[in-house]
C-alpha cells in the first residue's frame, strides 16, 4: 500500500516568463504507470513539466512516437517499462531496450543530444523511482535547454 | 543593347541557359553559358560509408549513372588498396562498354542527328527523331531503339537495374555471369555492332555527302583550337574504362600524361560569379581566361579530344574509321594532327561508338567472364583513393578520403561535362557572334544553330528512344527602343 516517504523535494519553482521544458513520458500500464500513480497518491512531488502518456507495454512505443513528440515541441522524452524479466507480455521491454539504444544513436545523428531520450525501469511499487526520474530528467533538460528542431 | 535569353536550353541533360547581349549595331557584345543548378554531393557524402558511394554518386546523373557507379567503385578499390579479380574487371568493362555504345547511339540519333538529318533550320516540329524516322525510314528507328534496348539489357543482366545499377563494390562485383546469360550478352553485343556499322553508313550518306553540312562542320564559326584530354591504354590507344590520362596541345604535342591519382597536380577549377558550375583548367598553363590555343589553360574532354589524345584505336573497325576520320579532316591518317572543328565531335563519337561495340563483343566472348571469382574481400585499412573513367561526355574523376573505418571525410568530384564548361562557353559565344550580325535576321533556326554549339559536347544527357515534336507556336518580335516592330518571325 501507499507508504509515506521522506524525500528531498527537488522540484524547481519556475519563474514567471522563464522557458519551461516540456517532457513527454510513455509509461507502461502494468508497472510504470502504476508506479507513477503511487507517487501521486503518496504525494511525492515531481516536476510538472513531465506529461504522461499511458501505453499498455513499453514495447508499444514505436520509435516514431518519440520523433513525433520532438516534432510537436517536446524537449525530452522518457520511456518507462517493467524491469527486465517482469514484462507483463514477456519480451516487450527487451524490444524497448534495443529500440531505445538504436533510437538514441539516430537522434544523436541528427545533432540532438541523446540525453533527451531516457529509458528507465519503474515497477508498480517504485513511486519514488518515478518521482526522482521525472525530477532528474527535468533538471537535465533545463540544462540542455529547449530543443529547436530544424525542419 | 538587347538581351536574348534562351531559357531553358533543350535536348540535353540538366538545366542551362544562354544569355546573349546584342549591341545597337546588331553585333554580339557578349554571351554567357550559365548553369543554374547545384546539389552539393561532395558535402553531403561526408559521413557516409565509402562502399555506399557507387550507389549514391550514380544519382549525380540518371543517364550516365554507370559512369559514376564504376568510377566510384574504382575509387573505393583504391581507398581499400584492393586488387579486384580479373573476371570482375572484365565484367565491369563489358557492362561499361555496352552502356557507352548505347549512350553514343542515342546522342547521335536523338539529340544531334535531327540537326543534321533534318537540317538545323528545319521546323522544330520535324527536327526530332520522329521526323528522322519519316525521312530515313522506320528501319532507322528500329536500329536506334534496338541498340538502346541491347545496351540496357546488358546493363540489367550485369548491373541489376538499367538506371542506377547496383553491382559494383570495393573488391569487385556482386553478380557474375552464367553460360545462358553470356549467350544473351553475345547476342546483344551483336546488335550493338550492327548498329555501329549502320551508323557509319548514315554518317556517310546523310551528313558527309551533304556539302552544306560539311561546310558547317568545317566552318570557322564552329572551330576552336583547344588542348585535348583523353584516356589511353599502355599502347596509346583510346580506352574508355581505364588507363592514363593524356593531354595534347592544339598541335598534337603531349603536354602531360598522368595517373588518375595525380589529377590534383594537373587540373584545377576556377570560379565565376555567374554560374554554379566551375571551370577546370590545366595547371601547366594556369587560368588564362576564356581563350583557346596551346597556351590556354582550357582543354576539351569529349569524343573529339579523346580521339585527338589517342594514337589509335584498339579494335580493327574503329581503327579503320579513326584513320578515315583523320585523313578526311586533317589529311593525315595517323591522327598526329588534332581535329578542332567542334561539330566534328559527332563523327568522333561514331569512331568511339564502333570501338565500344567491338570491345563489348570482345569481352562478351571472353571465357573468363564466366569465372565465379568476382570479389576480393578488402583487408587493408582504408585511407584515400581516386577512380577515373571516361564518361561519354568527358573524363570523370572521383576522389575520396576516409577515416580508418572507411567513413568519408572528404569527397572531391570533377565531372565529365564540367571539364568542358570553358570550351562550351566559348563555342556558344563564337557561334552567336558568327550567326548574329548586323542586318541578320534572328530566326528560330539561328537560335537553334547557337544551341548546336553545345549539343556537340553532349552535355550529360541522352534522351533514350524518343524526342517528341515541338508544336509550340511562337512569334518572335524584335522591337526598336521606341517600340516599333523591326522584324517578326512566326512559327504557328
Amino acid at each position, binding site marked *: 500500500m501507499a507508504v509515506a516517504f521522506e524525500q528531498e523535494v527537488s522540484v524547481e519553482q519556475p519563474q514567471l516568463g522563464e522557458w519551461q521544458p516540456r517532457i513527454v513520458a510513455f509509461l507502461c500500464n502494468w508497472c510504470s504507470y502504476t508506479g507513477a500513480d503511487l507517487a501521486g497518491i503518496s504525494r511525492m512531488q515531481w516536476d510538472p513539466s513531465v506529461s504522461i502518456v499511458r501505453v499498455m507495454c513499453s514495447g508499444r512505443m514505436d520509435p516514431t512516437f518519440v520523433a513525433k513528440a520532438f516534432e510537436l515541441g517536446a524537449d525530452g522524452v522518457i520511456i518507462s517499462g517493467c524491469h527486465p524479466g517482469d514484462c507483463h507480455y514477456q519480451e516487450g521491454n527487451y524490444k524497448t531496450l534495443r529500440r531505445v539504444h538504436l533510437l538514441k544513436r539516430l537522434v544523436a545523428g541528427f545533432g540532438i543530444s541523446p540525453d533527451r531520450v531516457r529509458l528507465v525501469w519503474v515497477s508498480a511499487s517504485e513511486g519514488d523511482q518515478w518521482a526522482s526520474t521525472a525530477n532528474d530528467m527535468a533538471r537535465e533538460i533545463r540544462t540542455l535547454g529547449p530543443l529547436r528542431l530544424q525542419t | 543593347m538587347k538581351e536574348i535569353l534562351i531559357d531553358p536550353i533543350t535536348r540535353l541533360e540538366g538545366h542551362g541557359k544562354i544569355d546573349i547581349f546584342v549591341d545597337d549595331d546588331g553585333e554580339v557584345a557578349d554571351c554567357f553559358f550559365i548553369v543554374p543548378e547545384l546539389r552539393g554531393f561532395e558535402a553531403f557524402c561526408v559521413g557516409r560509408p565509402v562502399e555506399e558511394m557507387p550507389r549514391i554518386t550514380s544519382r549525380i546523373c540518371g543517364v550516365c549513372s554507370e559512369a559514376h557507379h564504376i568510377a566510384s567503385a574504382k575509387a573505393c578499390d583504391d581507398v581499400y588498396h584492393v586488387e579486384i579479380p580479373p573476371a570482375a574487371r572484365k565484367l565491369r568493362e563489358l557492362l561499361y562498354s555496352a552502356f557507352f555504345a548505347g549512350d553514343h547511339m542515342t546522342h547521335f540519333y536523338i539529340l544531334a542527328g535531327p540537326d543534321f538529318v533534318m537540317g538545323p533550320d528545319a521546323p522544330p516540329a520535324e527536327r526530332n527523331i520522329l521526323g528522322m524516322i519519316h525521312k530515313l525510314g522506320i528501319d532507322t528507328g528500329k536500329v536506334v531503339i534496338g541498340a538502346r534496348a541491347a545496351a540496357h539489357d546488358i546493363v540489367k543482366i550485369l548491373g541489376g537495374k538499367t538506371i542506377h545499377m547496383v553491382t559494383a563494390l570495393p573488391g569487385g562485383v556482386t553478380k557474375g555471369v552464367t553460360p545462358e546469360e553470356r549467350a544473351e550478352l553475345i547476342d546483344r553485343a551483336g546488335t550493338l555492332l550492327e548498329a555501329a556499322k549502320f551508323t557509319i553508313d548514315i554518317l556517310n550518306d546523310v551528313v558527309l555527302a551533304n556539302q552544306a553540312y560539311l561546310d558547317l562542320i568545317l566552318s570557322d564559326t564552329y572551330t576552336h583550337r583547344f588542348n585535348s584530354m583523353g584516356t589511353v591504354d599502355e599502347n596509346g590507344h583510346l580506352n574508355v574504362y581505364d588507363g592514363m590520362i593524356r593531354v595534347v596541345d592544339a598541335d598534337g604535342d603531349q603536354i602531360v600524361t598522368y595517373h588518375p591519382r595525380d589529377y590534383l597536380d594537373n587540373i584545377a577549377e576556377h570560379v565565376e560569379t555567374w554560374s554554379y558550375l566551375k571551370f577546370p583548367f590545366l595547371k601547366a598553363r594556369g587560368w588564362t581566361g576564356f581563350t583557346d590555343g596551346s597556351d590556354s589553360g582550357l582543354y576539351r574532354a569529349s569524343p573529339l579530344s579523346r580521339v585527338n589524345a589517342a594514337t589509335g584505336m584498339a579494335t580493327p573497325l574503329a581503327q579503320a574509321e579513326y584513320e578515315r576520320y583523320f585523313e578526311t579532316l586533317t589529311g593525315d591518317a595517323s591522327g598526329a594532327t588534332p581535329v578542332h572543328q567542334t561539330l566534328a565531335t559527332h563523327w568522333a563519337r561514331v569512331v568511339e561508338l564502333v570501338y565500344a561495340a567491338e570491345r563489348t563483343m570482345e569481352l562478351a566472348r571472353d571465357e573468363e567472364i564466366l569465372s565465379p571469382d568476382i570479389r576480393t574481400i578488402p583487408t587493408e585499412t582504408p585511407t584515400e583513393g581516386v577512380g577515373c573513367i571516361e564518361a561519354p561526355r568527358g573524363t570523370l574523376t572521383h576522389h575520396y578520403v576516409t577515416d580508418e573505418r572507411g567513413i568519408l571525410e572528404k569527397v572531391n568530384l570533377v565531372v565529365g561535362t564540367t571539364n568542358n564548361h570553358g570550351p562550351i562557353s566559348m563555342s556558344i559565344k563564337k557561334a552567336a557572334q558568327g550567326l548574329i550580325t548586323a542586318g541578320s535576321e534572328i530566326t528560330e533556326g539561328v537560335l537553334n544553330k547557337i544551341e548546336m554549339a553545345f549539343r556537340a559536347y553532349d552535355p550529360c544527357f541522352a534522351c533514350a528512344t524518343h524526342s517528341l515534336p515541338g508544336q509550340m507556336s511562337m512569334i518572335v518580335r524584335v*522591337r526598336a527602343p521606341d517600340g516599333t516592330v523591326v522584324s517578326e518571325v512566326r512559327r504557328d
Partner: protein
Amino acid sequence: MTIEAEPITAAPTKPKLALYWAASCGGCEIAVLDIKEKILDVDAAFDVVFWPVAVDFKVRDVEAMDDGEITLCLFNGAVRTSDNEYMANLLRRKARVLVAFGSCACEGCIPALSNTTTRRATLDWAFRDSPSTDNPGDVRPQTQTVTEFGTLELPEFWETVRTLDQVVDVDYYVPGCPPQAHQIWAVLETVIDILQNGKPLPPKGSILGAGDKTCCDECPRVREEKRITGFVRPHEIIPDPDTCLLDQGILCMGPATRSGCGALCVTVGVPCRGCYGPAPNSKDQGTKMVAALSSVIDSQDPAVIEQILDGIVDPVGTFYRFSMAKATLGRVNLEGSSPGDTEREEVGL
C-alpha cells in the same frame, strides 16, 4: 531593344501532358522513355506541351497557358532552388493533376542527403576548400552578376531540400528511384483509361505504381528469421545467394521500404537501400527501420546491444538514404546552423 516571344496556344485537341525536372538527375525522364514502344501510345493519347529534356517549349509557354489547361503534369526532382520552387508553383496552377514523380519529388531522394549538412558547408567546400578548386579570392556565385552589358541571374540555393508536397498541393505520388518502367506504364495506362472511358480518378493523395507491402514481400531470398549477433558491411563478406541478407548481418532496408520495384537489388546481391520510399502505414522510414531492426537483434544485455549496434556505421544516412526530406526529426542540426534560421538567405555569403 527588346525581343518578345509571344506564344500562341493552339485550340486544344488531345489532353495536355507536361513533364518537368527540378533538382534531379534525369533518371526519371529516361525511365519514362524506357516504356519503349508504349511511348507511342502516350504520344497518341496526349499533346506534350512542356518537356525541356526532349521538346523545345520554354517556360513562357507554360506561363501563357490558362490555369488547369495542362491535364497531367509529372514533376520529378526535389525543390532546392528558387527556380525549382517557381516551377513547382507554376505547374501546380497550370495543371489539373500534379503528380510527384520519383523519389526526389516524393521523399527527397539522394539530393535530400544535403539536409545532413548545411548550405554554408556545401558552398564553402565547392567554391573554396575542395582540393581542386583554385579560388584565392574566394569568389562565390551570386544571384545577380552585373556585367558591362547586362545582368546575369542565378537562382537562390535554399538551405533545405524539400519535396514537392512541402511546397505545393500534390494529387498523386509515384515512388521509386527511378520508378520502374512497368510501373510507369501501369500508371499511364490507368490515366489514359480514365481520360478515354470516364472512369473515376483514384483518391487524392494515393500512391500509384507501387505495391502495398514491403520490399521483403517481393524478395526471392529465404528468410529464416534469425537473430543477428553482429552487422557486417556489404563489401566485408560474400553473402549466401539464397538467404535473406539481414539474416546474414547485412543491413537491408527491405523491411522499411514499400514494395513495387521487384526487389531488383537484393536479387543481384546488394541490400535494399529504400528507394521506393517508406513502407505502407509508416510515414517515417528511419524510425520504422529502428523498430524493424530492434526485433532481430539478438541480445538482452545493454552492453552487448551497444556492441552490436556499433556495426551500424551511419544510421541517419542509411535509414534515411532516400527519405531525408521527410524525416520527422527534420534536418541535421550541425554547429554553425543556428536554430530558427529562416531558409531564405542570399547565396554568396
